[in-house]
């Protein structure tokens, strides 16, 4: 009631004037507080007062309606004290009201009417002008009693005219969220109760359109049974909605049905199980049927058919046990063999005893002192047999075996505790595992022994070359000399000292028999030697002719070069050596800008190539020279990797270059790379091409010898690693299926390497012989190996200063 009133009051206060806004609110609060504080004690008084107040109100001004009420309220307590007092006060109040009734004073109005009357006029007067300066809508006049009288002017009925604070189209829905109006097209009401339309937005329009498009009952789900879009009727949706809210699903649903009385209720009452009927006679008379049965038993006992129970005697028990203990039937009466399960491993039988277990073994089986001691010192688990053989001369001397029970116990443990594993024992001759290699005798001839040693070089012998005729061997060494030997006798036939300081790095005979030209690389120069002692005059003259033939051509080339206008420095210079050298047999020199380490001839003997790995520019590392034209070419503009060695293909116009790790085969005609091999070596030392040109041997400093089948692929077909040190050199025999390699471990290895022309068969490689004889000097062993052109003779040169002929 009090609240209701407060609500009314608030509205009322709001509407007329905001002047008293602050005070009004205070008042209202105070009122509410007061109203709440007095619950129902003064209700009766209230009603009285209201009724009283009603009179006054009618007299009083409308504007101060609320104030009056407040007064009434504030006076409730005193009024309850004494009705007479109340009346007096009322009388006074009326007067005060009439004078200056301001809410403030009223509020302050205390117990005594005096205070009020004293205070109120001043404050009221003072306060009013401060609040309502602008809107003095009244005029003060004097009424008939001589009191002030307010005369109010006409209120302008035009809406909004007097409301400066409120916005024009203020929404009047108050303090509730706007979302309440989501379902409606308007968002509230203005002060006039007209609907305020929702401002249209794009989204709203869209959603409107969408809502129009969506068919009735659309859910966005598909019916799993039909695959059609699942449609739900309004009722169904309603049910769902209710279910989600845990409400009763439908109107017809009764959550509290009436109980159905199945067992109780009317007509179901239990009938009392007592009856007054007299006991039948049969209850007191012994059963005839039972009697009959008992008599049957008595008869059976009498006849001995039924025996009374007797506790089994000891004998019976024993008999029973005996029957249990000893088999009384054949378990295997109808035996059927079962196939052995593969997982079943039968326990291995103990091996039968050997000679050494005998009580009187042959004397050689008895342990001697050392063996006995060793056995006794051994740990028990390490012993290979758990007893020592002993000799007892006669059976009576044999003692009991102390460990018998222990052994049997251990056997028991083995039987049930030891995991069993089936091990296949290879009971074969180990010989059968070895591969069948052809008998070395069948692969003969191959070099086996050292027959001759060439002595004469000081320091290492670096290089060797067999004359194509097969009789002479040229060698070059650190002492700067080139020597020619007869391989069969070991005599030195000819020698020349080319240089004092520099070593001879490579020697190579020109591969034709009609000439006798030896090319030797020493320092940056290639010397062409014609040893006159070993060649006939005709051969010598032909050789000289060939060597000097290029001089005429050389002038031609210089002419063309000048005509071209190039002013390049010559990459090489072909010249005649000094007269002293010419005297000794050196007829031509070729000087390069780098030190050539290897020299190989083309099969047509007109071209040869030099490789100088230590050159500054990789483009000049490999040079191909034409002897007849005295021409030098660098075929590669830029070579990848450091060139190591090179060789010509024996039949095709191919040129094979080995860098440190790669081997490349170039087609000289097409001027392009034909193939690249990947031996997988870290540093290639030498390569050797099979005379057929289809297989390539690569020796490496990382102790490996690699066999490449050029038709198979670019990885090695076989990798042989039988040397303990770096391999320096490798060579194929020109005619026989042999090859040899020379290593720093001072050994040569001879292999049989048969290459079949048939593409289907792989090459067979058979190790034949390890030749030892050279000595290791300062870490270097055998430096080179060459084959006789037709015989199975190999010549090797070593760091120990000797060359050895192996036959």
């Amino acid at each position, binding site marked *: 009631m009090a609240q209701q009133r407060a609500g009314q009051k608030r509205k009322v206060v709001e509407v007329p004037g905001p002047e008293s806004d602050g005070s009004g609110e205070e008042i209202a609060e105070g009122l509410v507080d007061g109203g709440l504080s007095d619950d129902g004690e003064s209700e009766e008084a209230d009603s009285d007062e209201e009724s009283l107040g009603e009179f006054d109100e009618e007299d009083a001004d409308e504007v101060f309606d609320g104030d009056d009420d407040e007064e009434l309220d504030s006076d409730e307590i005193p009024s309850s004290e004494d009705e007479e007092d109340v009346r007096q006060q009322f009388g006074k109040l009326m007067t005060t009201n009439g004078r200056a009734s301001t809410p403030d004073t009223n509020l302050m109005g205390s117990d005594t009417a005096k205070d009020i009357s004293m205070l109120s006029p001043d404050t009221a007067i003072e306060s009013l002008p401060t609040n309502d300066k602008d809107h003095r809508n009244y005029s003060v006049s004097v009424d008939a009693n001589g009191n002030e009288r307010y005369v109010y002017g006409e209120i302008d009925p035009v809406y909004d005219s007097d409301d400066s604070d409120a916005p024009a189209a203020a929404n009047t829905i108050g303090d509730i969220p706007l979302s309440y109006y989501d379902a409606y097209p308007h968002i509230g009401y203005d002060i006039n109760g007209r609907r305020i339309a929702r401002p249209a937005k794009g989204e709203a329009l869209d959603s409107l359109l969408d809502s129009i498009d969506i068919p009735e009952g659309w859910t966005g789900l598909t019916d799993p049974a039909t695959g059609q879009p699942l449609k739900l009727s309004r009722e169904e949706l309603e049910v769902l909605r209710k279910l989600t809210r845990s409400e009763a699903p439908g109107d017809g649903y009764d959550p509290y049905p009436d109980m159905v009385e199945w067992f109780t209720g009317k007509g179901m009452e239990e009938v009392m199980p007592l009856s007054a009927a007299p006991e039948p006679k049969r209850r007191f008379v012994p059963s005839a049927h039972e009697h009959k049965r008992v008599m049957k038993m008595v008869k059976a006992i009498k006849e001995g058919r039924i025996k009374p129970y007797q506790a089994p005697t000891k004998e019976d028990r024993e008999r029973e046990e005996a029957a249990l203990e000893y088999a009384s039937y054949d378990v295997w009466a109808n035996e059927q063999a079962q196939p052995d399960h593969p997982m079943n491993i039968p326990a291995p039988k103990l091996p039968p005893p050997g000679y050494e277990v005998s009580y009187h073994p042959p004397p050689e089986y008895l342990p001697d002192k050392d063996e006995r001691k060793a056995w006794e010192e051994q740990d028990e688990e390490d012993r290979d047999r758990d007893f020592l053989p002993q000799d007892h001369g006669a059976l009576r001397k044999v003692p009991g075996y102390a460990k018998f029970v222990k052994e049997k116990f251990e056997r028991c443990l083995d039987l049930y*505790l030891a995991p069993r594993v089936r091990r296949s024992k290879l009971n074969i001759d*180990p010989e059968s595992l070895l591969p069948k290699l052809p008998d*070395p005798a069948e692969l003969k001839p191959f070099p086996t022994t050292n027959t001759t040693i060439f002595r004469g070089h000081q320091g290492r012998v670096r290089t060797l070359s067999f004359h194509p005729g097969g009789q002479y061997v040229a060698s070059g060494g650190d002492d700067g000399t080139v020597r020619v030997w007869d391989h069969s006798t070991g005599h030195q036939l000819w020698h020349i000292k080319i240089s004092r300081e520099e070593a001879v790095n490579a020697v190579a005979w020109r591969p034709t028999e009609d000439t006798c030209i030896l090319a030797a690389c020493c320092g940056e120069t290639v010397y062409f030697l014609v040893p006159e002692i070993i060649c006939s005059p005709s051969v010598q003259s032909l050789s000289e002719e060939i060597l000097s033939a290029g001089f005429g051509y050389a002038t031609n080339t210089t002419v063309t070069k000048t005509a071209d206008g190039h002013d390049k420095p010559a990459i090489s210079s072909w010249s005649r050596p000094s007269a002293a050298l010419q005297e000794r047999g050196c007829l031509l020199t070729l000087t390069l800008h780098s030190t050539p380490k290897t020299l190989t001839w083309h099969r047509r003997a007109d071209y040869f190539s030099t490789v100088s790995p230590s050159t500054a520019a990789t483009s000049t590392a490999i040079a191909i020279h034409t002897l007849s034209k005295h021409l030098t070419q660098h075929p590669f503009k830029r070579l990848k990797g450091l060139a190591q060695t090179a060789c010509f293909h024996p039949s095709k116009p191919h040129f094979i270059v080995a860098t440190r790790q790669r081997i490349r085969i170039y087609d000289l005609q097409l001027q392009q790379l034909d193939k690249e091999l990947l031996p997988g070596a870290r540093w290639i030392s030498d390569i050797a091409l099979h005379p057929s040109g289809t297989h390539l041997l690569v020796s490496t400093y990382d102790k490996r010898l690699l066999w490449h089948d050029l038709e198979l692929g670019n990885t090695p077909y076989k990798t042989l690693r039988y040397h303990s040190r770096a391999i320096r050199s490798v060579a194929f025999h020109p005619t026989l299926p042999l090859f040899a390699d020379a290593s720093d471990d001072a050994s040569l290895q001879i292999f049989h390497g048969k290459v079949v022309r048939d593409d289907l068969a792989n090459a067979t490689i058979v190790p034949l012989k390890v030749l030892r004889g050279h000595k290791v000097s300062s870490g270097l062993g055998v430096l080179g190996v060459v084959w006789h052109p037709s015989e199975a003779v190999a010549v090797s040169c070593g760091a120990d200063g000797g060359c050895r002929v192996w036959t």
Partner: protein
Amino acid sequence: MGRIKKKGTSGATKNYITRSQAVRKLQISLPDFRRLCIFKGIYPREPRSKKRVSTSSTPSTTFYYTKDIQYLLHEPLLNKFRDQKALAKKISKALGRNEVSDAARFEKNLTPKLRLDHIIKERYPTFVDALRDLDDALSMLFLFANLPSTENVPPKIIAKCQRLTMEFEHYLIRTNSLRKSFLSIKGIYYQATIQGQDILWLVPYRFVQRTGGDVDFRIMATFVEFYTTLLSFVNFRLYTSIGLVYPPRFDAKSEEQGAELAAIQLEVQSGNADADMQDVTATQTNEKAQTEADRLLSLPDAEPSEEPQTNGDAAAEPVDGETETQDTSTTLDQFASLDPKADTLLQPSLTADASTASKLFESFTIFLSRETPRHPLEFILKAFGCKRVGWDTSLGEPGAYCSEDDKRITHQIVDRPDIPLPSPPLTDGEADMEDGEGGAVVRKSNERVPGRTYIQPQWVWDSINAGQLQRADLYAPGATLPPHLSPWVKAKRGEYDPTVPLAEQETAAEVEAAEAEEDEVDEEDADDALAEASEGEEIDGVRGDEEARALEDELEDEDGGMDVELAGSEDEEEDKPTDAAAGAADDDGDFGGFSDNEADADVDAATRAARDHQAELEAEATGKGVAAGKAGDKKKAAREVSQAKRTRAEREELEDVERRKMMMPRRKRKMYEKMVYSNARKDEEAEVLRAKKRKIEKGGGKKSKA
């Protein structure tokens, strides 16, 4: 990407189960699990990779097959074990309430009786399977039969073991199926052949067995429980197969008196005796066929003897004709291969035959002296046909055929240092000789009785192993016995065989090493002789030379003889020692791959030969005889040459092997090396034995010389 597999749900893990898992799965205690495993013959497995198999982080040690354990789940014994457990609870509860009589009643009435019949049938589906697994069972039961009774081993079990083993022995005696036996330091090994299965077992000597603290008799008792069941079923089958009643009558009284084998009396199955006889013959013929099969199956090692087959047992057989024809069919012919290169097949020996076994001691009456082991001898003799075995009364009264004084005794087995011959007639020897009875009474117990062969027990064993009677004089009392050899060792190539003379199995290298040693000794001897000679007869110096020459000749002869042997044993050594040096020089051409030092050696040898020859010539020219030392030198040279040759051949072979090994893949090479290693170890062992033998022989020779 598939789902990530959970560990331990597939693969090898599912096949294996650890022991603790198994125990948990079966819901029994660990001892019960152990018993179950022993009964059912379930054993742990070794998975290929333990790590892959184990599901837990802690490394488990024992794995079982999951299926094995699964199969244990349905074992009826499992329920028995649970009953046992329940009973134990009941008893303990009753005892806790002080209701002793209740507890006793529970124990009496409720104790579950374990029957292992179904397990026997399950583990050994056929009788032959059971026979195959009888080795361990017999060894174990014979051990328990000889154990003293303790709290761990109740006398009941011992008695049962004794009875079962004796029953088994009776069967072997009856069918003569014992084949071999061997006296070892551990005990006596026996081998019988039943239905083609060789059964080998070990019986300890009759001494109180020492039982250490680390022997768990509960485990052994479990095994014994199973084995007794097995053996009793096997015995039943064996007895019924030859028409005997099982169990045979057991005379407890005579057993107490020490009757042993005689305590059991075999009964022929009652009902129709004729049918029984038929049965017996049928089984015997079966036996015949069986033994024939056995002979084919077994690969015996003893030398076949040329004993003529006689039909001695024809009288005993009811159906003469049949047996005769069978005899002719069963005698095996000896196959002699004509080509020595051909493979020689092992031929069955005559021991593996019931008929020969039954006849070996048939005609003898054998008496066992008091110091001999009665039980094994009685068993073996009876199993090999001896019907009349007597023994001293101190060895047990009942069952003995005769007393020591019996005239019928042909052999007496004694194990004493020596027994003196009957003392020459001291007082009334003649009279003694006249009336044997009286003489026997008066005769001293330590003296031999004339008309008997006295032998040591080993004679019996060696005879049965050889399949024929051995020379009795070798086994006379007090004599040094020949070594007793195991009949099961089969000599393999390269292994030492004590039955073959040393010379036949020595390698050439060993022979030469031995020779070198010998020569040194001989030379010393020769020097000594020379010194002696020169000392003795200084004037007649020629005689010393002559002696030396004779010695030289002798040596040369010996050398030649050795060389012939060598040629037989090794093909490579073909050259005579006289031209060995020359041959070595010639050989150069044939052998391709020498290195130079080898050649040098050859050259050296050749030059030395030449030098020797030169010296000889010189000596001749000067008129002096070649010194005896020269001969030794020559011989030494020849030996050196041959040695060099052999080492060269060996080296070449080694080189060849190395060459071939180079071409092998690594895995294969490793395997090869392993095999070579193990072979080398065996060879080494054999070599040690041979060296010892040689030493012994030489020592013996010296002793004999001295």
